[in-house]
């Protein structure tokens, strides 16, 4: 009895794994019904319009390899408001984390792979206040 209860979450995970393995559309946005009887997933954007952002390199308009997105900050409605960028240092020593207004970040395609551009200068980035998990200070883009 106790055994079967402890197994239940494992089973559920296993089933999810199975569904993911069987159905290519699971977790994607193709729109075919994932499982018979389940709600069909509604397509809302084509796949090539979405990009994974965590761990991605970002650059400014002028410089390459400025830093890397390590976290996203969302408001209480779940809308992403800022990206946490880690930059600088050498061999991981002396890096800085800052939070940048999400609307200052965009994807641009330079031929093959889309690159993430942050619409701030490197000097603005390096002088920005350090991001601390407890009290996020977000760098805003200067509208000039």
């Amino acid at each position, binding site marked *: 009895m106790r055994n079967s209860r402890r197994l239940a979450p494992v089973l559920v995970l296993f089933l999810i794994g199975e569904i993911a393995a069987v159905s290519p559309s699971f977790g994607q946005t193709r729109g075919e019904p994932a499982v018979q009887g389940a709600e069909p997933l509604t397509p809302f954007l084509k796949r090539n319009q979405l990009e*994974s952002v*965590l*761990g991605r390199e970002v650059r400014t308009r002028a410089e390459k*390899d400025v830093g*890397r997105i*390590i*976290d996203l900050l969302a408001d209480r409605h779940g809308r992403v408001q800022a990206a946490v960028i*880690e*930059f*600088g*240092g*050498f*061999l*991981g*020593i*002396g*890096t*800085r984390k800052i939070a940048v207004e999400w609307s200052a970040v965009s994807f641009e395609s330079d031929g093959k792979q889309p690159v993430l551009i942050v619409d701030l200068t*490197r*000097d603005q980035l*390096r*002088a920005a206040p*350090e991001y*601390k998990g407890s009290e996020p200070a977000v760098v805003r883009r200067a509208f000039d």
Partner: protein
Amino acid sequence: MRDWEAKQEAHPTKAPSRASQRGLDWFTFFVADIQTGFGPFLSVYLTTQKWTQVDIGLVLSLGSIASLLGQVPGGWLVDWARSKQRAAAFAIIGIGVSAFLIAVAPIFATIVAAKLLHVASSSVLGPAVAAITLGLVGHAAVGPRLGRNARFAAIGNGLAAGVMGACGYFVSAQAVFLVTAVLAIPALLALSRIRAVDVDPVRADGGIDACAASQRAAGIGRLLRSRALCVLAACVLLFHLANAAMLPLVGSDVTMRSSQWATALVAACIIAPQLVVASISPAVGRLAQSWGRRPLLLMGFAALPLRGALLACTNDPYMIVAVQALDGISGAVLGVLVPLALADVTRGTGRFNLAQGIVGCATGIGATLSTIGAGYLADHFGTATAFAGLAAAAAFAFVLLLGMMPETKPADA
């Protein structure tokens, strides 16, 4: 003359062969190389693999805790092992496998396992290198030899930081760990050049006092009753409490203050002290024989509060790099004098490596608290205050050393 010295004279050991000495040179060089990528760079790599900050923090914390717990058993194991070279070889293989796992399978379970494997291997490897050194040359010549080790380790550290930094920047973060795994091979080759007959396993543990009734290694209690060992461990703890957070704080400061050259300047902050260590540590090893251990220890411990105070005062990134060179003085002294003083105080106990484990644990406690404390000070009162706080801890370490640490150099050496 004490009995164990009589025993040593009864069985005079021949001077170690040139091949073994060369082998040890290269071994210390490659050991320094393979440890470079495992530091803060691991978190950069995991970030590129889309790890969340929570998971990265968890793995790093697990590693720190395991390291604190592993040091003393690691040292004990090296004392226990008959062949120090074999213990070192297993440790090198462990680190190589760990690097390979990190490179090929960056998923949570593998990374945790790889991190723990690395920690366990390192806690054996550190004492094992010093044990092989002592077993190879004996107490009379170990000072200069530790100086030579520190030189080769510093060259290894400096070169590896440069090469792996470039590798991470131009190739990929993953490549750094593949290079590390491959470097385990020359480390093993160098180790195999150290002839087994040249390393006396009893001498490598500090030798056994012949007048001790049982002819066995001393109990841990006897070790902990040694005032010199306790004071040294406390001073080392305070030293790392002051030292560990300084470089990351310096790097972060330079990143903030310099636009164009930030990366190169942070690299210089890491590599400059290694150049200093490489140039002065053989002299430190020789002087320890003529001056004794205390004056040199005091010099090394004095350099740290000075560095903290200067860093608290300066804003110029180039000046910061110059001040970082002071780290080389402390680095050379700690690298040579700490194992040397431990060899002094454990002479005749058969517990040289356990003592290294105890000091290694003190290092870990100091370093862990350093990051927490300096982080708090920097967040609430600014970087300059954090440097001042670290300098204060360093000054306390110096005063403790000045007031409590006896000269450990044997009268006859």
